[in-house]
């Protein structure tokens, strides 16, 4: 008799998800599904709103990375206004985005995933959380908190508010940066820098401890997508979306945001509110691709900053030019955070970043606009249509976790096959299933349930739907 194992409430991810593992008669994994069980409906209820309200509205999608939605939305609005925003505003937006990357990557690595990595996948689930981390590895916990605070404070200094800043507006930003703020952020950089160096060193020294995980945590050939500039350097605020094959050959690109739908198709899945985007030229589901830190470092030729590029070279030396195991999202994330820090420093030293001309003004000059950025979790697309008065008539949002939807499902299957035996699931195996989801740092409904104690609800369901076991 076939079984279904359901894992409700994957913990230490941002949002709500459920995992179904279907077992066949022999108790082997027959298929897996990753369901996102929350619907947000932003696309629907923004209809009729003035387009320039969209940044503030869509920033409410997420408490973890509101800056990402703000920026993607503001870029879509810039496109509707058909303006090129003043250069200082562009630099300030990128600066804000870098700070956001650092705080978000710090959250993902230290608060959400470090408990697995440092305490071990098989350690006591009651203590395998950030509190347990504080007890066993106080230095790492402190570093995580300090690094996240650095990013958040920079955001607060720039935008005046940590969560949901109203600073980013269509046409630019609504106030220039003061010399004081610049100097403050500059003075805080060295501490963040030393934390990241330390953390990278620690992570690299641990790599050998997880042979099974690096083998089976979504280790599969897929395409990768990420933003770069014309020279192939890593970009997060603006650039070209490139798609590469699992072996690194170029597969396609989106040079004009408005044409994203030529490259990206969206499949609706039963039982999930998350759509599954795929690389259109290849069709569904063959067009599976990954986004986020792992994919970005696969797609980019270089980071474009000295220290991060050295780390990138070492990363590639260890793992190859294109890394296909999702376990290394963590590694890639740390390198990116380092890059973001270096980029912040570079931006802060540009004299024009203090310029006072930071906002372009215009009405509706195009009836459609698309904004594409890299959120910490991967490519984020906001696409709006408006009528000639500027009222939204249609909106489409493709979020990072959406792009990774297919890859996450497939990774779960791989982990389940590797760690489940005879229809039985050990605590460690259960946690690995959730951990592989966390490797993608998915931002599911984008709520802030980051610190919940592990509360897996596992159900074994018979073919008839009867609950055979529950814990």
């Amino acid at each position, binding site marked *: 008799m076939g079984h279904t194992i359901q894992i409700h409430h994957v913990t230490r991810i941002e949002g709500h998800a459920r995992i179904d593992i279907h077992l066949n008669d022999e108790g082997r994994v027959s298929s897996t599904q990753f369901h996102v069980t929350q619907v947000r409906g932003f696309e629907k209820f923004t209809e*009729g*709103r*003035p387009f*320039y*309200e969209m*940044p*503030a*509205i869509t920033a*409410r999608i997420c408490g973890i990375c509101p800056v990402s939605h703000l920026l993607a939305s503001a870029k879509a609005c810039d496109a509707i206004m058909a303006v090129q925003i003043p250069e200082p505003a562009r630099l300030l937006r990128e600066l804000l985005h870098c700070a956001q990357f650092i705080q978000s990557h710090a959250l993902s690595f230290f608060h959400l995933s470090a408990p697995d990595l440092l305490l071990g996948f098989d350690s006591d689930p009651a203590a395998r959380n950030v509190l347990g981390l504080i007890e066993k590895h106080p230095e790492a916990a402190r570093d995580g908190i300090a690094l996240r605070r650095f990013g958040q404070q920079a955001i607060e200094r720039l935008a005046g508010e940590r969560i*949901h800043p*109203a600073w980013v*507006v*269509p*046409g630019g930003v*609504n106030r220039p940066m003061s010399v004081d703020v610049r100097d403050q952020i500059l003075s805080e950089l060295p501490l963040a820098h030393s934390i990241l160096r330390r953390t990278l060193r620690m992570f690299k020294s641990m790599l050998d401890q997880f042979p099974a995980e690096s083998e089976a945590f979504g280790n599969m050939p897929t395409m990768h997508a990420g933003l770069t500039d014309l020279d192939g350097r890593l970009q997060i605020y603006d650039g070209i979306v490139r798609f590469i094959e699992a072996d690194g050959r170029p597969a396609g690109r989106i040079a004009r945001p408005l044409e994203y739908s030529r490259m990206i198709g969206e499949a609706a899945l039963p039982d999930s509110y998350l759509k599954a985007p795929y690389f259109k030229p290849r069709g569904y589901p063959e067009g599976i691709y990954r986004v986020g830190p792992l994919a970005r470092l696969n797609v980019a030729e270089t980071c474009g900053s000295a220290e991060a590029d050295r780390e990138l070279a070492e990363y590639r030396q260890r793992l190859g030019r294109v890394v296909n195991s999702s376990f290394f999202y963590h590694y890639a994330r740390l390198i990116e955070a380092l890059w973001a820090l270096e980029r912040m420093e570079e931006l802060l030293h540009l004299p024009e970043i203090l310029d006072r001309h930071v906002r372009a*003004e215009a*009405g509706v000059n195009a009836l459609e606009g698309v904004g594409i950025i890299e959120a910490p979790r991967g490519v984020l697309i906001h696409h709006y249509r408006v009528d000639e*008065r*500027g*009222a939204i008539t249609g909106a489409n949002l493709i979020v990072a976790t959406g792009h990774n939807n297919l890859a996450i499902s497939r990774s779960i299957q791989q982990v389940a096959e590797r760690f489940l035996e005879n229809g039985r699931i050990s605590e460690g195996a259960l946690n690995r299933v959730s951990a592989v989801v966390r490797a993608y740092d998915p931002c599911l409904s984008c709520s802030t349930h980051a610190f919940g104690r592990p509360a897996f609800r596992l159900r074994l369901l018979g073919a008839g739907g009867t609950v055979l076991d529950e814990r």
Partner: protein
Amino acid sequence: MPDRVSIRIDGELLHARLGQTILEAATAQGRFIPSLCHLKGLTPVGACRLCLVEVAGIGRLLPACTTPVQDGMAVTTRSDRLDRYRRMILELLFAERNHVCAVCVSNNHCELQALARRLGVTHVRFPYSFPKAGTDLSHRQFVLDQNRCILCTRCVRVCAEVEGAHVWDVAGRGIGSRLVCELNRAWADSRSCTGCGKCVQSCPTGALAMKGFAAEEMVKRTETITRLVEAKGVRA
């Protein structure tokens, strides 16, 4: 008749000018009575009922913004009953339309929000009615968002009394009442709107706002309206 009268407000003896309203007399002495539809300089209409006070010897509550002072009047501006009613009025205003402060142009600069905060409205006990209230984005410079309108009619009055254009009116009845531009035209098609923006500056919420302003960016200049009225001598 003397032009000065003596009244008691919350037990304290005060002098007021004959012809002043209770609200004016109280404000002149630096006392606070909640008000929302009232804007100094415009004809008071007593629409929102937030300024209700108790007057000794009178069985019902009276709006301070429209009730003139009388010699010997004893007024109570704060009591449990008044607090309760005022909170209820605010809750009903919130329940009537779709007020989403977090994303509103007037967030942190809104009179409705400020009053709710000041009077301790922490939640709304009544079911929200979620009306389908539209927006008028047709004007080049301004926006009307019915979702945020509390029908205070400040815009109606400032336009008619100060600018002399009388673009705005209220159509419909009861819960179906809506602010309309002229005889229910799109704002852009108005024949009388001069584009002066006085309605926008008078509006206590984000219902009327400058176009293109992002969340929290709309700060209203209500005192400018009052000063303008005083300078023009439209209404003493």
